[in-house]
């Protein structure tokens, strides 16, 4: 069998690389050929010296890679809760009907493959889709309809975010992204390199009270201190841009609006921990943010703000963009490392922790996009200024992503301490209709009822009422929403995204969705089954995905027990 010589040309640039190049190679082959064939795998195996079985296993792990032929155009419509409220199921159904295929199939003429997708992080432009045309860059499509999916694809969207008091967001942006000329030439990094020792940068970040914005809320300065202090000549900074929590899109907006803010934050982190190598791992569903970041890195390197001898100093930094391929689990930091290393994205056992044994086994500081974006202003204005915003336990400005039944879905920068009620009524345009429930913290978060929304939006207040800030997602459902349908979609999400490594999560997410699918006519004892599943996943799973995969369901059992009874109220 001969293969299009294109593949050799395509792979030539990877000569001499090893397994770590596997995901980039698979992306190139997938992009050019629409799928990855046994012959491709054979070539890649020799090129990177990775067993063919391992490559096959990696392809099967990531949803955006295919080992079966696909259509010249692939359309993936998001069917998670927010897009479902906006009619995603209907759009998907109409598209399949028009093309005369079932979901997951390819048209006879080989032109289209249609699939559903987990949350694409475009909840402010629901319903959304991710589209791929053979040989072209992927496009994230906002506000899709049947016609928009069949016409020439248009991935243009922009919504201003922030207000006069914003630090992270910039309301004056008329069109994304902010270029270097508007952003400025990395003044905080300049100050750090010229006047401040790395230890002092860490001390300032520690003193600011900044805690991680990705969901785990770990003190950022402490993480950097551990990484800097770890005994190794090779260290890494990794920016976790694998934002995939349903209802969460703040990191996407930050990257699309303010790429240089993130790059300067990464540079400060690298300077602080002492490394010249940083990697941004960005989810494969974010093609626009990926292109914007790539262009910003080039712009900054050309201006001498990144690369060798930054600002004439002996500090150098190479920032590499790595694209995920459809796996929520890779937002878990150790699974992310595995993905960068060219493996299936399985979370590792901890300890050892990333600060001593991270990417390629080296000390690694891994931080969320929003966390890193907070750093330049801390260095610029000082830790006291940062600490002065918000509360003692939740210092600094915080982004939230709000979606569902509100007047203006989008990303908002809030001062922690305002109540959820104030936020809903006064900030994001009010609840449309009568509030039924808020899912706070994303798919791994908890439900709040209308009487619960006087809670203050801080890490500590939300924790005290058994909820979580999580990734900052706020999904709002009015009285027309079928909460059972929402629960089914959450169940499907976790069933689809469990990596399958540990038994509690692999089996628990499956058993959970089986029960949720029959929620309209539940069996006796289903609520108890769900509690046993949820508690077992929470207490016995390996990683954060498993620990939280039953949280929303268990909170629904507590807040809306009638949903789990055979004669419960039927909605919609």
């Amino acid at each position: 069998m001969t293969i299009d010589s294109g593949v050799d040309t395509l792979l030539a640039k990877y000569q001499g690389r090893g397994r770590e190049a596997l995901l980039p190679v698979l992306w190139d082959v997938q992009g050019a050929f629409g799928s990855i064939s046994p012959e491709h795998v054979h070539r890649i195996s020799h090129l990177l010296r990775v067993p063919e079985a391992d490559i096959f296993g990696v392809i099967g792990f990531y949803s955006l890679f295919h080992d079966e032929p696909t259509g010249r155009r692939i359309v993936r419509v998001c069917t998670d809760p927010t897009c479902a409220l906006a009619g995603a199921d209907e759009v998907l159904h109409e598209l399949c009907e028009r093309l005369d295929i079932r979901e997951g199939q390819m048209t006879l003429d080989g032109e289209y493959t249609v699939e559903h997708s987990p949350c694409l992080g475009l909840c402010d432009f629901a319903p959304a889709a991710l589209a791929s045309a053979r040989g072209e860059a992927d496009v994230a499509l906002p506000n899709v309809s049947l016609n928009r999916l069949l016409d020439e694809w248009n991935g243009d969207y922009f919504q201003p975010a922030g207000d006069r008091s914003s630090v992270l967001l910039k309301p004056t942006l008329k069109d994304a992204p902010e270029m270097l000329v508007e952003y400025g030439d990395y003044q905080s990094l300049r100050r750090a390199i010229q006047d401040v020792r790395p230890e002092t940068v860490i001390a300032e970040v520690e003193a600011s009270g900044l805690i991680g914005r990705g969901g785990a809320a770990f003190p950022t300065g402490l993480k950097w201190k551990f990484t800097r202090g770890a005994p190794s000549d090779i260290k890494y900074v990794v920016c976790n841009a694998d934002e995939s929590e349903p209802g969460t899109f703040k990191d996407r907006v930050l990257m699309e609006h303010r790429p240089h803010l993130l790059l300067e934050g990464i540079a400060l982190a690298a300077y602080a921990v002492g490394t010249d190598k940083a990697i941004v791992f960005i989810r494969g569903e974010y093609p626009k943010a990926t292109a914007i970041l790539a262009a910003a890195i080039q712009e900054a390197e050309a201006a001498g703000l990144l690369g060798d001898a930054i600002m004439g100093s002996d500090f150098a930094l190479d920032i590499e963009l790595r694209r995920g391929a459809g796996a929520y689990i890779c937002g878990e930091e150790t699974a992310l490392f595995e993905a960068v290393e060219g493996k299936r994205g399985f979370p590792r056992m901890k300890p050892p922790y990333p600060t001593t044994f991270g990417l390629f086994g080296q000390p690694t500081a891994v931080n969320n996009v929003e966390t890193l974006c907070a750093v330049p202003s801390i260095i610029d204005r000082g830790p006291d200024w940062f600490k002065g915003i918000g509360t003692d336990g939740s210092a600094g400005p915080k982004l939230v992503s709000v979606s569902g039944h509100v007047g203006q879905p989008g990303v908002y920068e809030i001062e922690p301490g305002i109540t959820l009620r104030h936020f809903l009524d006064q900030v994001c345009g009010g609840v449309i209709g009568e509030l039924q429930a808020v899912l706070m913290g994303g798919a791994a978060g908890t439900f709040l009822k209308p009487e619960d929304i006087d809670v203050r939006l801080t890490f500590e207040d939300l924790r005290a009422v058994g909820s979580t800030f999580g990734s900052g997602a706020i999904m709002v459902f009015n009285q027309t929403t079928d909460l059972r349908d929402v629960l089914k979609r959450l169940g499907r999400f976790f069933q689809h995204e469990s990596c399958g490594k540990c038994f509690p999560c692999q089996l628990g997410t499956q058993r959970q969705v089986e029960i949720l699918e029959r929620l309209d006519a539940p069996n006796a004892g289903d609520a108890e089954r769900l509690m046993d599943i949820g508690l077992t996943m929470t207490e016995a799973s390996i990683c954060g995905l498993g620990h939280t995969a039953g949280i929303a369901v268990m909170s629904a059992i507590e807040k809306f027990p009638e949903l789990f009874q055979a004669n419960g109220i039927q909605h919609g």
Partner: protein
Amino acid sequence: MVSNMAEDSIKLSLDGEDIEVARGATLLDAAEQAGIDIPVICYHEATSPNGLCRICVVDVDGGRVLQPACVAECQADSKVETRNERVERSRRTILEMLNASVNLAEAPEIQEMIADYAADEARFPDANLREHTLIDDNPFYIRDYEQCVLCWRCVQVCAEDAQFTFALTLKNRGHDTSVATAFDISMTESPCVFCGQCVGVCPTGALKPKVQWGLEQGWGADEMRQKTRRGRKRNPEKTDGE
């Protein structure tokens, strides 16, 4: 214990008993030393522990999450309960969920655990059993993945834990995961060297020697000889084109 151990040993409480163990010992080591039985499924002394079946979880200091005894190291002055209500709930629920996905008929050790933890074998009605067709593609062993619990041992011994053959991988993700060759090619087309180590470490009936399987099927001597020697190339010239 004698006091000269102090430098290299630590003390902890295990099910109410104070014990002293070597520094670096796992909780499973400690339990063994104390004569306490902790069930394991994926753990095998010949393979790298991945702590993935979680049947060995124990309660350390009433922490937020339970700890896998096979990999978690003993912490000085900790208080460990190897079998309390939380531990039992997790073990029982894992067994009930596993039984709903996998045919455990030929996994006697797991059957014992099901009895010990009073796991209800019908706890999850209408669950999706993982369905696989039995694979009989070589003269040496059969693969019946309906009996596979995904302990990973076979994949591990085929790779860096023993043979470095890399014939096996994990296919798909989550509950849909299965052990497979690249693109599901037959074992004879794969790099498999038929070392048999995968069969040796399988804790269920998922991997079974062909002869054993044949005996179960009631094969006679002639049939057995024929079916377990197919494909052998005693004289390569003559078998060409087969």
